[in-house]
């Protein structure tokens, strides 16, 4: 290999925040309970409660509320576009008219519906950001194997694949440059752009499959999935605090539903 190798920043030290260092499986179970309750409600007050809780516990994951907004920007963008498109195209325009300009009629019902949908999106996305941005992939695989009895074949295989995905960005840039060197570019023609995109993606796929196959052979050669009983090098104890986290997730989920059905 020549040239500057892709050097990612050394991985950040594991967060020591109270909730960030809980077992990944416990975090995911609590997250599932919490977001399911949010998904099942349209009540603005209940969703507001869920979002308020999310921002309040963010520091316990070692993330400031502002940092959460920054990491969750795609969700914020999605929520904003939900509000705008519903305000423009909603079918149900009953309720008091708040604003009318030509075809755009915004009523209280429109506003409440849009707000509820946008908040639901955020109440699912932002807690997920909290949990997954504080969970190391290796720890997640270890925890899935040790606490959720997921097969090592799947968990470690997925982990190795995840590592390769990180290389795809560089590979894409190389293939795109190689296409240009061959005299192929799209100019302003959208159809040619689409064709070029497809052919670059195909090149990427061919490379990914080759690399994946080689990695699979290397893993086989080291006895992976050879049918021997596997041991774990990084035992991860399940602590009472992990049960507490799940219980807290369940309690908050119940609270969301109680507010919704008050």
């Amino acid at each position, binding site marked *: 290999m020549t040239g*500057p*190798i892709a050097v990612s920043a050394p991985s950040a030290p594991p967060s020591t925040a109270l909730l960030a260092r809980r077992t990944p499986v416990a975090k995911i179970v609590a997250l599932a309970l919490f977001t399911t309750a949010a998904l099942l409600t349209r009540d603005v007050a209940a969703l507001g409660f869920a979002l308020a809780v999310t921002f309040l516990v963010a520091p316990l994951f070692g993330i400031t509320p502002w940092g959460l907004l920054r990491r969750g920007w795609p969700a914020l963008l999605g929520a904003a576009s939900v509000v705008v498109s519903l305000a423009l195209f909603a079918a149900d325009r009953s309720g008091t008219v708040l604003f009318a300009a030509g075809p755009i009629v915004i009523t209280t019902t429109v506003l409440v519906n849009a707000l509820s949908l946008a908040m639901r999106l955020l109440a699912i996305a932002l807690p997920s950001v909290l949990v997954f941005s504080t969970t190391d992939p290796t720890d997640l695989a270890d925890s899935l194997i040790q606490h959720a009895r997921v097969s090592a074949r799947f968990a470690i295989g997925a*982990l190795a694949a995840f590592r390769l995905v990180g290389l795809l960005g560089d590979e894409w840039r190389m293939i795109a440059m190689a296409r240009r060197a061959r*005299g192929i*570019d799209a100019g302003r023609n959208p159809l040619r752009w689409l064709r070029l995109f497809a052919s670059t993606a195909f090149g990427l796929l061919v*490379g990914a499959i080759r690399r994946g196959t080689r990695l699979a*052979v*290397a893993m086989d050669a080291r006895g*992976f999935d050879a049918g021997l009983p596997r041991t774990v090098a990084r035992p991860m104890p399940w602590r009472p605090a992990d049960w507490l986290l799940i219980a807290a997730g369940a309690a908050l989920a119940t609270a969301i539903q109680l507010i919704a059905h008050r």
Partner: protein
Amino acid sequence: MIKLEGYGWRHAGRRAWAVRGLDLRIARGERVLLLGPSGAGKSTLLHALAGLLPEDSGQAEGTVEVAAARTGIVFQDPQSQLVMSRAGDEVAFGLENLGWPLSRIWPRVDEVLARVGFGYPRDRATDALSGGEQQRLVLAGALAPEPDLLLLDEPTANLDPAGAALVRQALRDAVGADTTVVLVEHRIAEVLELVTRVVVLEPGGGVRDDIAPHLLTGPLGAELAAAGVWVPGHPAAARRAAAPPGDVLLSTHDLRVRHLAYPDTAVRAGEALAVTGPNGSGKSTLALALGGLLPPASGEVRSPDGPPHRWRARALAGRIGSVFQNPEQQFVTASVRDELALGGTPPARVDELLARLRLDHLAGANPFTLSGGEARRLSVATALAARPRLLILDEPTFGQDRRTWLELVDLLAGLRGDGHGVVTVTHDPAVVDTLADRVLHLERAP
């Protein structure tokens, strides 16, 4: 330890046998270097010894017996061997698979990391290591379960000279005396001291020679060199430019690309420039910037027709041909002929290139099924299709056997003789010695 009798293997869907009629015995503790030109089946044999040829992936004949309790194998490319994101976990991975008790795993990990001279703590991110360091880590992972047979498939081929030296040092220090080693390498001068026996495979089947390492320096060495094997003491004759260089095709001025700064340089017609330097010195990045594929961060790349990165792709391909390190990244069609005809190359030119680069018998083949040497020749042919005056190649000789290597160097020397400018990014000292008129040596960025 190893007993092969009349062994042969044919990959599914291929007409030719990868290896055939092989009789070979290797005793415990021997260190064997496997030699042979491309296509002699060296890698296939290593896969067979490692038990990595599933019965349904081809056809076997004869017998292969390997009496090893544990086999370790190291391949060429560290990036497609690393499984975990932290160095210690990577070494522990194999031990977990084999069911080692936890109490023994981490002491063994630390011991092996120390033995291969890995200078970082266990939690070092594997992506942040250089190629040579990664390959040392891969070696540590292979050695951790105490293999009695270690198979090495060109473990240094992907590395710069410093990285390759690191891996050889680790092999010298870390492999126990009772471990049997079978090694495949193209460039053998540096590894000869590590082995006790040299086995030369005959393309088409069987063992051609089975000798002590020092015999490679005799008349046999000359014979093997002629057959395409890299043998020490048989340097290629230098190809010197017959005429002084012509007009300037490209020049750089205070060039910075990404975070890397480059000394001012110029490329002339009829001149071969070699760009050398360790990994991380930005050789490939410079090649991309000269080739009009990466815009400068500051400064400029100047040519009589303006800055190359602003040209449309079509104009670029007609002025500068770029050959990437990995040829497959440049292939876009389903046949060798289509690949050359891309962008409206006249059929006569396509035929000329096919003949010149000995690809005519492969005109209908899919580019992705070519061997390493063939794919390299095709990637050079595609870069030449639009008759650019400047050719920029990134590690063109990497992983090639001696015959393909000589062909490439002759081709590049011929292009220079025809008035082309040739820029070669390389860490192959033989390319510099035989071809380069001028060397631009880059240092690693601080």
